[in-house]
């Protein structure tokens, strides 16, 4: 026995020392398992169930007969239904397309913004960051509502343009695809700027100076040095916009028209309108499968950024 052990006194203290860390790890671990991860398992199971007129409104997957035989009834009909009804496929594709273009536009606006903030002095930086963060925390619902006040037919934009004499008829923006894009870009812009700023701030300027010394024009130095080095921020920011934007529900519902059928809206209607829970679960599971790639990409780059 080592001398340290002898001094370690009571066995209870020893046990606590060796396993005490689990008292810290387990509470959050079990909570997130129970209320974040395991729910996905439930959704997976229910997506194989059938609708039934009872509470809860779906059949059991696993049943145990009186002679203790376990029966597993998998109903693939829900997934088949997803492939056969073109509404789902179309809304998936439409959501992907909308999210993709919104992400690109957010990147084009957000990158110069983050770059400008990163180049100001430290004290200006913290003020500018606070200005960007403030809307980040304000609810989507209220900000989308505020945007409606600007772009609706009698809103500020139309009345200003009419008053200036630039247009003579109010522009119809509400209930169009343009409104959905404006809504997503307006709501998600801070999500793009913040991670971009985090990488651009850490950028080593001596590299840029070296490039300039070696005769690189600024645009060349930007493409060869700044852009590749800010890639983690570009990816993290893009994923922070792209992934939630695919599942966006509030924006297409409040600003979009009947054509702007994004998957979030379809899911919502399936649940609250049709009350078809197994099909809604199947839609959610299929949606999730498509998101695994982007989410893994985000996890990879964000952990890298946190550890840097």
């Amino acid at each position, binding site marked *: 026995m080592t001398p340290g052990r002898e001094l370690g006194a009571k066995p209870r203290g020893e046990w606590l020392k060796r396993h005490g*860390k689990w008292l*810290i*790890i387990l*509470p*959050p*671990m079990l909570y*997130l*398992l129970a*209320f*974040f991860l395991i*729910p996905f398992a*439930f*959704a997976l199971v229910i997506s194989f169930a059938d609708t039934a007129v009872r509470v*809860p409104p779906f059949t059991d997957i696993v049943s145990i007969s009186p002679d203790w035989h376990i029966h597993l009834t998998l109903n693939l009909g829900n997934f088949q239904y997803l492939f056969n009804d073109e509404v789902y496929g179309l809304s998936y594709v439409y959501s992907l397309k909308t999210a993709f273009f919104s992400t690109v536009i957010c990147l084009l*606006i957000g990158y*110069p*913004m983050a770059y*400008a903030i990163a180049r*100001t002095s430290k004290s200006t930086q913290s003020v500018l960051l*606070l*200005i*960007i*963060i403030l*809307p980040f*925390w*304000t*609810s989507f*619902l*209220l*900000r989308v*509502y*505020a*945007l409606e006040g*600007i772009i*609706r037919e*009698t809103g*500020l934009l139309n*009345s200003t343009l009419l008053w200036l004499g630039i247009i003579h008829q109010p522009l119809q923006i509400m209930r169009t695809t343009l409104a959905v894009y404006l809504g997503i870009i*307006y709501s998600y*812009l*801070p999500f793009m700027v913040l991670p971009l700023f985090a990488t651009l701030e850490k950028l080593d300027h001596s590299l840029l100076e070296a490039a300039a010394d070696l005769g690189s024009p600024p645009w060349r130095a930007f493409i060869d040095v700044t852009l590749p080095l800010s890639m983690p921020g570009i990816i993290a920011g893009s*994923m*922070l916009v792209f*992934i*939630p934007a*695919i*599942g966006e*529900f*509030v924006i297409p519902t409040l600003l979009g028209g009947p054509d702007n059928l994004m998957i979030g809206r379809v*899911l919502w209607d399936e*649940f609250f309108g049709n009350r078809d829970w197994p099909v809604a*679960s199947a839609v*959610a599971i299929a*949606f999730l499968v498509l*998101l695994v790639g*982007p*989410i893994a990409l*985000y996890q990879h780059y*964000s*952990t890298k950024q946190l550890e840097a």
Partner: protein
Amino acid sequence: MQDRVSPFLITILSIGIAILYIPILVLIGYSFNASALVSVWGGFSTTWYTQLMHNDQILDAAWLSLEIGVVVSTGAVILGTLAAVSLVRFKMFRGRLLLTGMVNAPLVMPEIITGITQLLLFISMLHLLSWPHRGFTTIVIAHIAFCTAYVTITVQSRLQSADRSLEEAAMDLGSGPVRAFMDTTLPIIAPALASSWLLSFTLSLDDLVISSFVSGPGASTLPMVIFSKVKLGVSPDVNALASLIICLVGICVLVAGHLMRRSERQRLLDAQMAER
């Protein structure tokens, strides 16, 4: 190196900030409009604010949301701090990767999916265990899950930069590990805890999608009431209510930001002193 910010960059930055703020400022402006017609300016008035104070549906919802917010942010700060300590202090343990994933995933997971899956869990639990009934309890449970993720990220980055030598010194002087942590590291991360409490509070107060799924009949939070009103179009009393919430959230975020900044300055000052 921070000498030149080109006019082009300043223009884009100003436009970006203007895009973010003009709609909110216009909304707050119109909430003081005396006219019931939302597009006509009828002079300054606080009518819509007084009307809110007499609207029982809105007051009930606001009270419910505040209660949920307080319980949620307290729970999330406790769980999130434990998770952050686990991830920063224990480099190797079974399930570390799993915990990291479960902490990061809620930040990007579309709310609608989180909401649906949690609802399905609650339905099945109610069926099997006769608990929990949908309403206050289920909303609190669901909100704590995603707020914990935000708290963990905030506290984690603060813990990583905290100096461990003080804690080790306390342990050398005979404090147990828990006592040493409480006496030395906890005061250092306290501002991060306070600001993540405030941020969780605003996240919970703002949430519409997850609440709508997991809530039951009779329990309508403020965003749920607002959503049902907003679907019908722009109205002056919603303008007033929205302005109030935006100001409340704004104050929470400003206080949180101030706390974080002050502690950061203190840390830099301490580091300078130590170097001398």
